[in-house]
């Protein structure tokens, strides 16, 4: 029942910030592992990079870009709230961040994939 008092944009933005941070933290070791293959041999790296043509990996790539934008937008929002003069734009900033993440997701979908 107490969930009701948490059902507002500020809490959702904080949750998105944390969840995207955790998911990105899960991705980072994999990222470094793949980069580390370049030290071993070019063939080893190319072997893994070939997986990037798999549609599922492409989808994960898209998710990664969206997660990065969400995390960036949520972090920028907190910085703006705490370091810029207060403008009562709390929810506007959340909306702007969500819109930016959506725009980056759409652009990535059509231009890059």
């Amino acid at each position, binding site marked *: 029942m107490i969930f009701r*008092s948490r059902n507002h944009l500020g809490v959702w933005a904080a949750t998105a910030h944390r969840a995207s941070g955790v998911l990105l933290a899960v991705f980072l070791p994999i990222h470094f592992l793949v980069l580390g293959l370049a030290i071993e041999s070019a063939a080893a790296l190319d072997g893994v990079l070939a997986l990037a043509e798999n549609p599922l990996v492409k989808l994960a790539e898209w998710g990664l870009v969206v997660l990065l934008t969400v995390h960036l937008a949520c972090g920028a929002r907190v910085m703006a709230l*705490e370091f810029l003069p207060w403008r*009562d734009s709390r929810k506007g900033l959340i909306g702007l961040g969500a819109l930016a993440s959506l725009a980056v997701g759409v652009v990535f979908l059509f231009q890059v994939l």
Partner: protein
Amino acid sequence: MPSAGSPAETLSVEVWRGRDEGRFERFSVPHRASQTVLDVVTWIQRHAEPALAYRFACRVGVCGSCAMTVNGRPRWTCRTHVSKVAADGHLRIEPLRNLPRIKDLAVDLAPFFEKWQRAQGRFTPSRTRYDGLAEVNPDAPARKAVDAGIECINCAVCYAACDVVSWDDEYLGPAALNRAWTLVNDARDADRKGVLRAASRGGGCHTCHSHGSCVEHCPVGINPTAGIAGLKRMSLLALLGRGPE
């Protein structure tokens, strides 16, 4: 004694009974026009369960005594109309979150007020009774910041709504920090540096996660998140040698 009417005219009210261990007890309360949640609790105490413990004083939204958790949200019950929160005729009333329970709907507010003291939420005069009145310019930006936060009624609704208070026992909470914000902006306070120090050490303004639950729930429309963000900025400026004098 008013009797319960037909189902359409009756509210089904669940009330927390006990302390940390307890249970919800169900009461049928007649639904009246312009009825507040405090009216409902008072009806139960007078007509159904005389041993029900709860707290209220002014009944007009000034004293801040009657806050409770109503259908999952902390609210001032004397100004909360039943028609706004119980469209389906059902109410669940619990004590405020984040405070030690005493009995039924009454909580111990001592930790809440102790944190006001830890945040140095008290005015330190810079004049004596023999000095003239201080001139206050109502248009000064600092004074406007004070005016925006000064009407707090100490109801602890923000304190109950705040997740950071639940996570961290040391966190001073939105109300105490909002009070500190009004003092560091008050040109008449003789120890603004001290207030900023008290409000920005461990458990102070930097502990806030800017969720904004305090703003969402404050019954008098204060924005403690804005004040806490102001304290964060001010403490950073103080670090750079540009803090309050």
